[in-house]
């Protein structure tokens, strides 16, 4: 089925406690030199074709619901 992916990440200037905790844990596990930011990935199955309209609609949905645009940014990719 046709699929669109929405990636939602904390804005770079916003504190990311999760990413911070994961970064620390990786270091303790011996994985050095990695800095992590943690966000969300939505895989969206679309009934029908992924037209530019559908992408725009999903962008709309991301703006409204999937991302909290006060603290997160997002992008929409046809998969």
């Amino acid at each position, binding site marked *: 089925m046709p699929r669109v992916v929405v990636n939602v990440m*904390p*804005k*770079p*200037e*916003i*504190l*990311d*406690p999760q990413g*911070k*905790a994961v970064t*620390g844990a990786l270091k303790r596990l011996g994985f050095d030199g990695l800095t992590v930011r943690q966000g969300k990935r939505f895989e969206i199955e679309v009934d029908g074709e992924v037209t530019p309209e559908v992408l725009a609609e999903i962008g709309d949905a991301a703006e409204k619901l999937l991302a*909290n645009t*006060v*603290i997160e940014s997002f992008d929409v990719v046809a998969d």
Partner: protein
Amino acid sequence: MADTVEHAAQTPDVEQPYAALGVKDDEYARIREILGRRPTSAELAMYSVMWSEHCSYKSSKVHLRKFGELSQDTPRGPLLAGIGDNAGVVDIGQGYAVTFKAESHNHPSFVEPYQGAATGVGGIVRDILAMGARPIGVMDSLRFGPLDESDTRRVLPGVVAGVGGYGNCLGLPNIGGEVQFHESYLGNPLVNALCVGVLRHEDLHFAKATGVGNQVIMFGAATGGDGIGGASILASETFDEDGPAKRPSVQVGDPFMEKLLIECTLELFQAGIINGIQDFGAAGISCATSELASAGDGGMFVNLDLVPLRDPNLAPEEILMSESQERMMAVVEPANVDRFMEICAKWDVQATVVGEVIEGDRLIIQWHGETIVDVDPKTVAHEGPVYERPYHRPAWLDAVNADRAEDLPHDNSPEALTSAILTILGHGNIADKTWVTEQYDRYVRGNSVLAQPEDSGMLRIDEETGLGIALALDANSRFSYLNPYLGAQLSLAESYRNVAVTGAEPVAITDCLNFGSPEDPEVMWQFAEAVLGLVDGCRELGVPVTGGNVSLYNQTATAPILPTPTVGVLGVIDNVATRLRSGFAHPGDAILLLGE
């Protein structure tokens, strides 16, 4: 290049964007007069936040002073700390003391409900921690627009999840609060959070920097560009041609960091190596340094280059104003610094010496080897402007009061009464609040003797003797709208009764006064009346006001919220095993009605 003190002295005529920082013409003139020159942009940053309504209480101070005229004795003896300290401290006997305080986080909770409410809880918990107390419980008083408004559907779930998310993660039982709905809160919800903490008498700590040579240590989270909208104006002026980098408009809380900070700080207290301590409140380093220095017996030197940063591009003005969460500042004797660092390392808490207590009475801050702040800290922290705002009784009040329920059409038919009762019971203000309270952990710590749905919360303090405390948090905004003096007293009376009926003896109160704009004389009148009502009520009941918080400018355009004085009452119970629950206990018990 930074705007140094030297540079400021040589360039008296540089235009400064003080108005954009909320500093009035006469306030700016006063700053110049205090300094005998123009302020550097870093100094201007400090004065602008510390002299803001939020930090300086410039409109409310003249009224709040009346609280100070009340006796500082509780029914159980003198207060150990009162108004003027981070939070009041009440002697509850057996060598224990309790500290409690409420604070508002209204506007941030409207902008970003989850994080706004979460960081509101975080802030008040650090206030309690800074007194040397272990935080042991939280409460929250919430007000939203009507339940069926779409924005309420955005704000309410976020706020509740935020209060719960932060408090649950800290392991603080939520033992009560309230949720009310009214149109006036639609564009301006209220989030008032209360925290209570316990300490032994000898562990009481004050926020002051004493002892020349003692080290000033920042510990907890790194400093980021949170909540520094204003400072960016300054930063862009002095630094960056392309304008300031992107700065977050909201703060994100890290409750896990705060939990570590709590355990770490308590262990530091226990080790006896903290001479003075201050949480970072709204005004960040500006506030912590100027308050610590002005309360102490020396001056303070801070090297801003040493402050750990989350964002390396922050300008010094921004570092001074940053509201990043989960940070504390301590004053420590040089011989104890190593031990201090060890304890912080144990808890994985970053700690950095950023300065020291110095001779004299100046607060001096350097950046890249140059002095960018050289002020008398008292002028920053305590000698801000004080306004006697004009106030008068609103003309519309008589008409509102004349419009009485008795004049409404009455239909006493059984059908009409049934439907009236159902309407009332179905209203958000009356309806069951389980949807909210189920999201809060009330069991953690294992000392919650009373929590929802009881009228007040009760916590056991001592397992052996059963010593405990009760707490209630109430406001009655519709009564306060009709008559702010009596409305505030009703809030007080309600909270007081809620504590008393558990079997605890009410001993002290704190408050959180939420009102509209102080520049509106009618709002200012509501405020003045509410304070008077509380003062007279407390005098009558024989309880002191240990502290509180004022939140003004709660309005949508020019329409203020209903005046909402939230009152928290603390009670003491010698043995929690004797507590009374609400609700009928045994079949066959007699039911008595007290009062008229």
